[in-house]
Structures are given as structure tokens and as C-alpha cells.
């Protein structure tokens, strides 16, 4: 336990040291890159709550990334640039959407659940495409970044530190949740559902609650993401994005606190490297992913320590 705290502190320090180092070396690009990775790490961590710990194979999690981003974008479109307001709306809207989608989907299981969550996120994607006023398929520019008052998101380094703090907070929050009574029920239901029902736990309310929490947290990631890219498109909600999030969770190691963060770094850095080689990098990434599933399922976190018991 102590060793984990040490590792996390080291990681936090390393990440905090990156901007000054990168700027000193004249490579501001890395600030942007790592910021993007950290934002998606928050999204991956939120997915890990329901997928890794809850056993819910949700293939539509990117929907909340999109909702969060669009909340910021649409409010900015109409002149509401207060970041606190925007982000609160992003979180709330995602939570409501997750409640609606989860209420229907969680009644099902197995292959049905996978297809249904995918279908609902695709529905939202098409909704985004059909709303011409917000750019439709092409998306829209963010009018202005969220105004937070105490920090200026237009400064890449300040934005970076905001993201770093939020990522650490998100990870910590999820850590507390999965070890609380609530988290125990979630994990128990994943481990053995009939046993859980036999001792008196009804899975549905707990799963739904976890689904909503995960959605809300992903909505926050979406708000950050929209600010980061400065351009908001329906592709944020695509099945492709959902699949990428799932891979980050798996590659990093499910049901572990560090997993999604490690996975996000591994996956996105790999993408970055491959993109540098060829524009057709997906023809390499695809088979790599297939091989990783076939041969290497324990994930990266398994290298550092045993998964949570």
C-alpha cells in the first residue's frame, strides 16, 4: 500500500515537472500531448469504474465525452462562457443521459448490453450530426474557452496543471468509491452475481448508480476535451472513440486504480508514434490490438503490483 503511494507521488511529480522541462527544451508540443492524454485518462478511469470494477461492458461510453464537450460548446455558442456553469452543466447533462441510457440498458446483460450501449451512443452521434445549427457533421469551433476566473485556460501551462489536478482528484475519488461499501457491492456483483443476490444485494440500483457516476465523470472529461481541442464534433461520441477508451482500460489493467492512466498513456503514445511513421498507422495498430487481446490480457498495471483484492 505504501509503495503505491510512493509510485503515485513520483508520477505526480514527474507530470508536474513536465511543462517547465518541455518549455525549457523548446518543445511545447509535449505539454499539449500529455494534457490530451490526461484528459482521456479521466475518461478511461470513469469507464474503468463500470467496466473494470463493475463488469459492465459498456461500448458507448464516449457518448458522455461528447455530451460534456457539447455542453461547453453550445453554452459558449450562446455567450455563456462561465466555466463553472459550463462544467456543471456538462456533468449534470452527462449524468442525466447516463441515467436514461442506464435505466434501459442495465436491465439487460451480456451481448445485449454491449449492443445496446453502442446503439444509444450512436443515436447521440446521429443527433449531433443532424443538428445543423451546431455544425452538424463538421462540428463547430469553440467560441471561447471556459472562463474559470482563478486560472486562464488559454495559457497552455495553466490548463495543463488544471488537468493534472483534476486527473489526480478523479483517480483518488474512484479509489475511494471502489473501496467503499458501494464499491464492494459493485465488485461483488461482478465477481458472482447469484451469490450477491442470495445474500441480499439487488444488483440493478448499484449498477445504475455506478453508471451515472461514470457518465458524469466522463462528462467532465468531455468539458476539458472540448476546451483542449477548441473544436467540437460528433466524432467525440463515435463508436471508434468508445473502443479506444475500452482499450485504454484493458491495456492498463482492469480493476486497478493506475490501470486507466497507464493505459491512456500507453495507447495514445503508441498512436502518436505510429502516426509519425505513416498516415496509414491504423493498419498497424489494428493487428497490434488484436495481438494484445489474444496474448496479453493482464494489462500493464499487473507489472507493477497485484490487482486489488
Amino acid at each position: 500500500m505504501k509503495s503505491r503511494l510512493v509510485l503515485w507521488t513520483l508520477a505526480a511529480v514527474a507530470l508536474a515537472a513536465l511543462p517547465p522541462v518541455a518549455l525549457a527544451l523548446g518543445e511545447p508540443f509535449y505539454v499539449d500531448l500529455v494534457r490530451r492524454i490526461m484528459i482521456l485518462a479521466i475518461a478511461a478511469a470513469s469507464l474503468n469504474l463500470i467496466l473494470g470494477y463493475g463488469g459492465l461492458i459498456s461500448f458507448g461510453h464516449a457518448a458522455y465525452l461528447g455530451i460534456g464537450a457539447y455542453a461547453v460548446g453550445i453554452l459558449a455558442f450562446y455567450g455563456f462562457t462561465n466555466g463553472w456553469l459550463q462544467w456543471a452543466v456538462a456533468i449534470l447533462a452527462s449524468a442525466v443521459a447516463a441515467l436514461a441510457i442506464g435505466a434501459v440498458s442495465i436491465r439487460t446483460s451480456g451481448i445485449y448490453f454491449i449492443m445496446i450501449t453502442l446503439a444509444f451512443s450512436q443515436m447521440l452521434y446521429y443527433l449531433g450530426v443532424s443538428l445543423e445549427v451546431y455544425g452538424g457533421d463538421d462540428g463547430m469551433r469553440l467560441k471561447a474557452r471556459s472562463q474559470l476566473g482563478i486560472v486562464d485556460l488559454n495559457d497552455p501551462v495553466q490548463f495543463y496543471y488544471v488537468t493534472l489536478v483534476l486527473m489526480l482528484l478523479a483517480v483518488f475519488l474512484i479509489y475511494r468509491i471502489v473501496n467503499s461499501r458501494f464499491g464492494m457491492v459493485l465488485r461483488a456483483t461482478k465477481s458472482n452475481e447469484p451469490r450477491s443476490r442470495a445474500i441480499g444485494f439487488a444488483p440493478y440500483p448499484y449498477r445504475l448508480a455506478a453508471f451515472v457516476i461514470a457518465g458524469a465523470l466522463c462528462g467532465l472529461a468531455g468539458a476539458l476535451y472540448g476546451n483542449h481541442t477548441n473544436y467540437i464534433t460528433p466524432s467525440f461520441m463515435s463508436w471508434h472513440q468508445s473502443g479506444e477508451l475500452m482499450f485504454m482500460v484493458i491495456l492498463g489493467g482492469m480493476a486497478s486504480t493506475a490501470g486507466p492512466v497507464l493505459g491512456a498513456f500507453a495507447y495514445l503514445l503508441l498512436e502518436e508514434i505510429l502516426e509519425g511513421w505513416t498516415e496509414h498507422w491504423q493498419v498497424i495498430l489494428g493487428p497490434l490490438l488484436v495481438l494484445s487481446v489474444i496474448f496479453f490480457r493482464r494489462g500493464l498495471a499487473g507489472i507493477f503490483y497485484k490487482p486489488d483484492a
Partner: protein
Amino acid sequence: MSEGLLSVRQLVKSFGALRATDGIDLEVIEGETHAVIGPNGAGKTTFISQLSGNLRPDGGRIRFAGDDVTALPAPRRARKGLARSFQITSIYKDFSALHNVALAVQAHAGHSFRFWRDARRDEALVGPARQVLEDVGLKDKMHVLAGNLAHGEQRQLEVAMVLATRPRLMLLDEPMAGMGIEESQRMIEFLSALKRRHTMVLVEHDMDAVFRLADRISVLVYGRIIATGTPEEIRANQEVRAAYLGEEAG
């Protein structure tokens, strides 16, 4: 006759053309240990599953502690005090023995929508769990991963989890399944000690256990109860001997 703690009337369950439960009537009196025996395929596990809420009967009704629970889902029945152990071991393989039982304690400690405090160190959960494990005899295996326990120890853990829910009635589905002679003896002694404080419905094949533990026995053949009575009455019953005991050695 006043209603027992568990009262079953005309329970019916069919799977296609097969009538697995064919009109069962049963009364379980509070405080008694009531064994259900019968040849393989008689429908014992189907019956227990309907009592615990894992299976919905096609007809008939089940009353528990005065309330009609026929349509009540399994988790709700468990919280009312109707607890069940499984014939095929069903524990949390990736949790320690202690946390297995702690979860059972937690299920009966109010709602679990608590998101912050660490449940692994919560004395309110871990304390009682430790106690139950001690009672069952698994104290030194507390921190072992349940999946790594020996088969007999896992069966003990099953019973421990039922106990931890402080049940009013325990449904034990072949608790000694797959156990060796020594382990079975220990389990029988343990269940014997529980008799005084608990009401039990015990499904078992082990006749030694049945005759030592049961206050009353019901014999289930082809989905129907053909006889209910004290062990002596059942031993002497001609129909039972013909249908069941006569086929068994001694």
C-alpha cells in the same frame, strides 16, 4: 394448525413437459431442522430455488414469517431473513474468506450507498465476519483468497456466509456435497450446534447427517412430497422404503 415460519402451499413448477414441482405442501416450524430428501432428479434443488427466490413458481404460494413472498425477488427474501447456500459452491473467488463473509454482513447492515469510507477496514463489517469465521473454524484461513481454499473449506465458507446474514431460516442445499468423511463429520457437528438457535431446511443425500440432524423429514419423489414425519416415522414408512430408502444401502 397455526402457520409455520415457512409455509408452502400447492407449489407447482414445470419445465416444458416436465413437472419438476408437482403440488408441494410443506410447513416448517420455527426452531426445527427440517430435512428434504429424495432420489436424484426428484426436484430438490428446483424446490429450494423456488423457496429462495431464484426460480419463479408457476403456481401455488410461499409464505415466510407471515408474509406472502411468492413473487418477492431473491435479494428481498434474503433481507427478510431467508438465506440460502448453494449445492455447487458459489463464493467470491477473488476475495479473501474474510471479505466474503464481510460482504454477507454488509448486505444486512442497511443500504450500501456509502461512497467514501473504506469498507475493508470497517470494524462494523469485519468484526462480525471474523467472529463467524471463528465459529465455523476458518479463523486461520481468514486472509486466504477464497478461490485458493480447499473444497471442504469452501463449503464451510458457504455456510459461514449464510450465518453472517443472521437469518431467520437457513436453506442449506447439500452443504456436505463433495466432502470427505472427516470433513463431513465436522460439518455435521457444526450444524448440530446451530440447531438450537436456528431454523433450517436441509437438503442432503448423506443419510447419516439427515438422521442425526433432522427433527422432521420430508421425502420428495418426482416433485411430490410422499411423506413427512420424524426420522423414526420415515424409517418405518413402507412407501418411503419402497420409493427411496429401499434402493439405498441401509
